[in-house]
């Protein structure tokens, strides 16, 4: 047997002090297999060892929370005995190495988390980040990721109903693939991932175990270097057909009531599912790897325990009812095999043909994994990037800026991507992709759920606390713009190497921001995911917390979208236009500058704004609602005219902003928070203005829907005048035009 020396520890990503702790918990030296178990379970990916102390500060409770963090997914009550089960998860590292499979298995993983809870998945969203589409590498990764998401989700028949995509060179070597899934379950039918009942059999079902993905969790906990392409064998291969069978069979088998606990084998595979189920149920488990169905010959226990082969589940079944469970799996041509049983005590015992080969306390792998209070430090550059040297810049003309921004891939229509996603399967999709929020109805009820995933890495780079609050506010505001009252949230924290104090500071600040905003906006966090070490050759991504917010509409028929509906309707801006250019798409695109302070955010005013828009939609007195984000008010107004068949608008804005030379552009393209553009029929205008006054939300009529052009003036001076068809074509085709260039293969 290999001696455990510093080289072996390094290969396992275990630090010397961690090894000491392992020996203490074990009461002896671990063997190589046991070291392997610790290595995956104590990886950042599985243990959250760097982020856990901070995550504990997040608000996780609320009147509707049925299941908070700690299970496979969170759940919130949506009335009539139903709950929405949802979570977001990342597959960033694998998607860089093998874009199609990396993204596909990311979708597969989050779907399993949802149906494992006993919920039928009904919606997928994704938050994606890539490098500039002007580079062949980014085009290749974008192409592969989009195809992979579609290839998996479309096959299974879960619609991809929305999401957001941002392109920035900071993600060139570390694309982000965050996938959100939501399912519906009866509150009473929720099944948890805990083992219970001594003597209850433990079943393995699904795909056979192969050597793919061994140490996937460890890979996802390390930075990339020039050798990363060699890590390809650590990316798993997905089989959506197997997953579809597993999903249907598991949902059916859970209805029998014979399932005590169930967990999917995701990161850290068989090791994670056995130790976590035992740990959650405060019991022991004994398994024999001999019984694990294997795809390859000659696999050793180490490989079987650490494999991350996809589409596998672990079930604890009530003793005496095995036949009921086996019959359901047989129906679906799946073979469920008993691999072990629940035992007294609290240890995970792994056997190979009857011989004990590993014997570890469950909790040593899970709850007793190290938790670090890592050192933090404000980056030296933090203050300086918050300054904008306006005197060095020459303002772009408003028209030129508008024409450019409308076709920037981050702002442009993402139709190229979502045309490849089946968004109509399931017959629940009320708001198609491309609207402020995705909306799905809840069948057999009058209700609907609105969902949005949002994050702004640029803002978080400039101020992680502020940026994270803005992400929560935007996701929540998007949901509110569809009429959804936020009832729960999930977060995906994408950051660099937490062992660097300035990155750790970003993480801590971002989590603090998420906590403060979620508390103020009544959106408790019910689960999430942390992806660290998103760095290549020492350069980290922008700190990118992504928030997924779920909102409830009591009356699905009341929902509105961003698009103008009738000529002559009043265009009203809710909230203040403050002309803040810090961190804006305008500065980045027109001046190649990421600088300034992110927009201010008053959480009280944000909450009032969201409550107002939800009320106005419920009252049925507005025709459209659209949040202002990247590109500011001018872009938001333009987007309201797209997909309307060419309905234009005329608007006049009051000049704002501190820099006189940039006042017009700040007015048009500043990205101040807490703003919503609505359109209102004239007969409802008084009611809307009165409701805004009562809610103490600033409201100003800025123009009218109509004409065939987007006409925006500032203080009466014409600034933008673009025919809707040409602006819409530029916006709709920008990404496909870039993608039409032949993507080169590996450079």
């Amino acid at each position, binding site marked *: 047997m290999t001696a455990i020396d510093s080289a072996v520890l390094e290969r396992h990503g275990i630090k010397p002090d961690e090894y000491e702790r392992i020996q203490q918990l074990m009461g002896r030296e671990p063997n190589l297999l046991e070291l392997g178990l610790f290595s995956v379970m104590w990886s950042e990916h599985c243990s959250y060892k760097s982020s856990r102390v901070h995550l504990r500060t997040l608000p996780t409770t609320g009147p509707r929370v049925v299941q908070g963090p700690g299970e496979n997914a969170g759940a919130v009550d949506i009335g009539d005995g139903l709950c929405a089960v949802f979570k977001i998860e990342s597959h960033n590292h694998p998607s860089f190495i093998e874009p199609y499979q990396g993204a596909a298995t990311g979708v597969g993983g989050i779907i399993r988390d949802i149906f494992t809870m006993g919920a039928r998945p009904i919606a997928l969203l994704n938050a994606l980040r890539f490098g500039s589409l002007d580079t062949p590498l980014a085009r290749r990764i974008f192409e592969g990721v989009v195809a992979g998401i579609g290839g998996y989700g*479309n096959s299974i028949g879960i619609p991809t109903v929305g999401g957001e995509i941002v392109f920035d060179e900071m993600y060139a070597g570390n694309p982000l693939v965050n996938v959100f899934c939501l399912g519906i379950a009866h509150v009473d039918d929720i099944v948890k991932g805990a083992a219970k009942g001594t003597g209850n059999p433990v079943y393995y079902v699904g795909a056979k175990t192969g050597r793919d993905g061994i140490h996937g969790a460890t890979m996802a906990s390390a930075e990339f270097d020039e050798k990363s392409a060699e890590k390809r064998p650590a990316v798993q291969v997905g089989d959506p*057909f197997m997953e579809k*069978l597993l999903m249907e069979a598991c949902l059916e088998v859970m209805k029998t009531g014979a399932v005590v606990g169930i967990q999917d084998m995701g990161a850290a595979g068989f090791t994670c599912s056995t130790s976590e189920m035992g740990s959650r149920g405060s019991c022991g488990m004994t398994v024999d790897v001999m019984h694990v169905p294997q795809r390859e010959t000659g696999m050793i226990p180490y490989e079987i325990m650490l494999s991350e082969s996809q589409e596998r589940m672990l079930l604890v079944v009530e003793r005496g009812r095995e036949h009921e469970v086996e019959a359901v799996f047989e129906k679906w041509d799946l073979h469920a095999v008993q691999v072990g049983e629940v035992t007294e005590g609290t240890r995970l015992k792994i056997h190979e043909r009857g011989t004990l080969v590993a014997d570890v306390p469950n909790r040593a792998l899970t709850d007793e994994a190290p938790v670090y209070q890592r050192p933090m430090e404000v980056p030296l550059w933090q203050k300086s990037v918050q300054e904008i040297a306006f005197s060095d810049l020459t303002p772009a003309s408003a028209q030129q800026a508008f024409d450019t921004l409308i076709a920037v891939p981050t702002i442009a229509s993402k139709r190229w991507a979502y*045309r*490849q996603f089946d968004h*109509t*399967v*399931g*017959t629940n999709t009320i708001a198609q992709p491309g609207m402020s929020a995705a909306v799905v109805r809840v069948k057999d009820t009058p209700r609907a759920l609105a969902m949005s995933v949002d994050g702004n890495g640029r803002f978080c780079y400039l101020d992680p606390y502020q940026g994270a609050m803005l992400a929560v506010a935007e996701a929540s505001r998007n949901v509110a713009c569809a009429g959804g009252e936020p009832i729960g949230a999930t977060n995906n924290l994408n950051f660099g190497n937490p062992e660097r104090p300035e990155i750790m500071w970003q993480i801590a600040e971002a989590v603090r921001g998420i906590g403060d905003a979620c508390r103020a906006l009544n959106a408790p966090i019910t689960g999430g995911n942390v992806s660290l070490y998103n760095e290549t050759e020492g350069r980290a991504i922008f700190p990118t917390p992504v928030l997924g917010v779920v909102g409830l509409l009591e009356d699905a028929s009341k929902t509105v979208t961003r698009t103008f509906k009738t000529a002559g309707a009043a265009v009203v801006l809710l909230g203040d236009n403050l002309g803040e250019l810090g961190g804006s798409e305008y500065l980045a695109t027109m001046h190649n500058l990421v600088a300034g302070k992110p927009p201010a955010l008053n959480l009280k005013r944000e909450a009032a704004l969201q409550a107002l828009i939800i009320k106005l939609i419920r009252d049925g007195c507005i025709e459209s609602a659209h949040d202002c984000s990247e590109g500011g008010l001018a872009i938001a107004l333009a987007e309201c005219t797209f997909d309307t068949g060419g309905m234009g608008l005329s608007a006049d804005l009051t000049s704002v902003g501190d820099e006189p030379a940039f006042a017009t552009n700040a007015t048009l393209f500043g990205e101040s928070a807490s703003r919503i553009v609505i359109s209102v029929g004239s007969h409802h205008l008084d009611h809307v203005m009165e409701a805004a006054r009562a809610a103490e939300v600033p409201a100003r009529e800025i123009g009218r829907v109509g004409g065939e052009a987007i006409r925006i003036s500032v203080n009466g001076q014409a600034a933008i005048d673009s025919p809707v068809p040409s602006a819409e074509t530029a916006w709709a085709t920008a990404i496909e035009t870039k993608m039409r260039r032949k993507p080169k293969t590996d450079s």
Partner: protein
Amino acid sequence: MKFAVVVFPGSNSDRDAFYAASRVIGEQAELIWHKDNDLKGADAVILPGGFAHGDYLRTGAIARFSPIMSAVTAFADRGGPVLGICNGFQVLLEAGLLPGAMVRNDRIKFVSQIVPVRVEQTDTPFTAACAPKQVLHLPIAHGEGNYFAAPDELKALEANRQVIFRYSSPAGDVAAEWNPNGSLNGIAGICNRQRNVVGLMPHPERASELPLGSADGRVVLASAVKFFQDLKASRPQGRTTSSPQALA
């Protein structure tokens, strides 16, 4: 009347078809597992979308060996109405119940969008309630919807008025620019010579309620109901069975 919706392993629109038939149209419907051998007295059969048997080998290629397919074939041979939607259409092609084949979309990628589709013929069980040349807005969601047939076969299809749905402009003009997948002659759906078996790539069951973006698809299942009622009305008095055996 009663619809049977066949469930293959990998079907993913079975529940949608069931919902449309039972909840939207308001008729009886039953999900039938592919290992079953009989259609449980159904008056019309729907083979739903999805990726039956993982679409391994070719789309629809393995599904035709499912036990239920003998019953479906016998039902079709007796003149019973059979509708194949998307993957169900592909299964009908592989099973030889409809002529031709499906190949990869000409632009390679999966396409998911609502498209205008023109109804070409109204003398089938699934278009009986349509107006001639009516344009329906229906979602498509497929990677292999590019209909192909040999030149002679295609000629025969057109001559026999077996092309039932064609991709068109919203005004009903058929042109290459409105063809989303490269299908020959813009074909979106066809029927067999006897006209009782219809297959189409668009999803009428997903466009049966206005909140979903279009209710145009409702007419397809409503046609089956009308067809069934017309048949019943034309039948001699005293015969009450609704099984198609009695119709043959």
